[in-house]
């Protein structure tokens, strides 16, 4: 399906244009979510999109699913309650790096620990965009931000390592340059039964690029092209090459981890109900 038809089918009439700045990668990610839903052949009624607050969180309002644009950092608890109420829903949570890793960080590790079947899509633009360029937990150390005029001194999280350690059973990364890969990994993440997280590396030319003199939006996308390495190629690197790649700021993309042997939370709860009602 072409983008025109996808727009017509999955975006709400009258809700566009979106609020995102020219050159922002958030539209690419939101488009990839829609393409993944389309690829899986899901009905719009069985998909819920629950977001928090931030630029990325505005995605929910544009999409013609069961949607909510809730509070900063709180999308995962609300999504968890919704999933418990109706486990048949495919619940997707678009979130920003501040929303997911800072104010919602505690909810992230516990949703991952429970292995509840939610799909968290982190729109990682390395900055707080909506409030105008403050540093987030995913801003690389040494970056400039409006709250770091003398450069950030805080190291960034490796969010995917964090989620995996907390218990996420599907971990993937992509970039707004690698669009087809992004669609594929988001589709796999939605299909995965358990807590899945997809970090989508995206650019914020307005609030990150400009402050850090990276250049225009195409430059930021070129940076993604030059730094994202497909997981197959990444795994084939010898240790020395991989160490150099890491030192150069390169990172693997694709499905980085998948574990299908851990019971999903709502399924485990259904068994608990049977036990409570006297079954085994």
């Amino acid at each position: 399906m072409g983008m025109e038809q996808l727009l017509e089918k999955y975006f709400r009439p009258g809700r566009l244009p979106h609020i995102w700045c020219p050159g922002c990668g958030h539209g690419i990610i939101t488009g990839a979510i829609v393409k993944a839903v389309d690829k899986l052949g899901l009905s719009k009624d069985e998909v819920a999109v629950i977001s928090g607050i931030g630029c990325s969180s505005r995605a929910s309002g544009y999409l013609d699913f069961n949607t909510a644009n809730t509070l900063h950092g709180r999308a995962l608890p609300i999504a968890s309650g919704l999933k418990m109420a109706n486990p048949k829903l495919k619940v997707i949570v678009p979130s920003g790096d501040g929303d997911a890793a800072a104010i919602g960080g505690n909810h992230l590790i516990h949703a991952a620990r429970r292995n509840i079947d939610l799909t968290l899509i982190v729109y990682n633009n390395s900055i707080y965009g909506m409030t105008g360029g403050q540093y987030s937990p995913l801003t690389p150390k040494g970056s400039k931000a409006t709250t770091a005029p003398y450069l950030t001194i805080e190291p960034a999280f490796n969010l995917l390592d964090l989620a995996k350690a907390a218990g996420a059973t599907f971990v993937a990364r992509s970039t707004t340059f690698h669009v087809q890969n992004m669609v594929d990994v988001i589709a796999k993440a939605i299909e995965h039964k358990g807590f899945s997280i997809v970090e989508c590396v995206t650019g914020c030319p307005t609030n990150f690029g400009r402050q850090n003199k990276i250049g225009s939006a195409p430059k930021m996308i070129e940076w993604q092209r030059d730094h994202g390495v497909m997981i197959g190629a990444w795994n084939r690197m010898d240790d020395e090459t991989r160490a150099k790649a890491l030192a150069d700021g390169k990172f693997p993309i694709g499905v980085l981890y998948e574990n299908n042997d851990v019971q999903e939370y709502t399924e485990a709860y259904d068994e608990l109900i049977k036990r409570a009602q006297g079954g085994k």
Partner: protein
Amino acid sequence: MSIKLLQGNQAVVEGAIAAGVKFYGGYPITPSTEIAEQLAARLPQVGGKFMQTEDELAGIGAVIGASMGGKKAMTATSGPGFSLKQELLGLACTAEIPIVVVDVQRVGPATGQPTSPAQGEVMMTRWGTHGDHWVIVVSPVSVPECFWLTIRAVNLAEKYRVPVIILMDEVVGHMREKIELPDDYSTIETVDRKRPDCAPEDYLAYGTKGDDLVPPMADFGSGYRWHVTGLIHDETGFPKGTPDATLQSLNRLHDKIYKNLDDIVTFENYKTDDADYVIVSFGGAARTAYDTVDMARKEGLKVGLFRAITLWPFPEKQVQELASRVQGILVHELNYGQYVLEVERVVAGKCPVWLYGKYDNSSAAPKQLLDELKKHLGR
């Protein structure tokens, strides 16, 4: 009917089950923890679900999500946790998600005194979350009332699509009393939120008809795709922040409650018919006042008790009526003086209003309360 000896918190649990609550999310905190513990056991027995969340925010968040999914949902907490829940309480107000929040008060602020009686959150229940908003707050006085008022709270939340707060205190939450429980909860009258009966393409998420100011609410996943937002929104449910849209939104949130006061406001009058003086009280503090009234009457003082069951909206009409025919009102509450401010506002000088605010981590004895009244009467 079966006769049981239950704690107030346990009676809340049975009330929730009887009302059809199917989801609980929350975090343990004294003196409300028994509600979580018992619902963890009871909910799965009736096909419901219990989640112990990572924090208080996630507890009420999950409750909001479950309610969006069509389940009757509640959480319980105490002071410090109730502070944390305020953010999401506001979301439930503006998005009109029916939820019930139990706050079993303890002494505050901060950690305060976890297992001592206090009623310091009266104003917080009314004004806790930021921005103009309206909620319903009910306060039980006894274990049986914990049961029936929890059912009523769930029903009101469903009927008006509003958060309903059950404001308890350590006295009522932890006290054990006799209660007659119906053997068959299915005979109890319960209310389910209105759901849309139009075609999905005609559904306006916040559209209302005529005098009915409460819009029908579709379960997520039921074929009616709509949008929940914490932003000011119009009847479509999508953000619209114009002065007109803001006015319309806030006015309806107010009016859906305040145009139905006769349905929402409940109270008890104990010997107020011929009273010269009335004690106004609620919850655990009111338990003292019944005996005070009886003691006063033995001494020839015509005293009555007006017990607010619905704290908010304030029983304005009823208190004004009392003020017009008594010689004085003594407000008794377990704090430095909160509800008294609203009583004074409403009485507006029609009769003297006195306060016996007790904030020393303990309840009053009936004689203490009587002595306070007599002090004001010069006896």
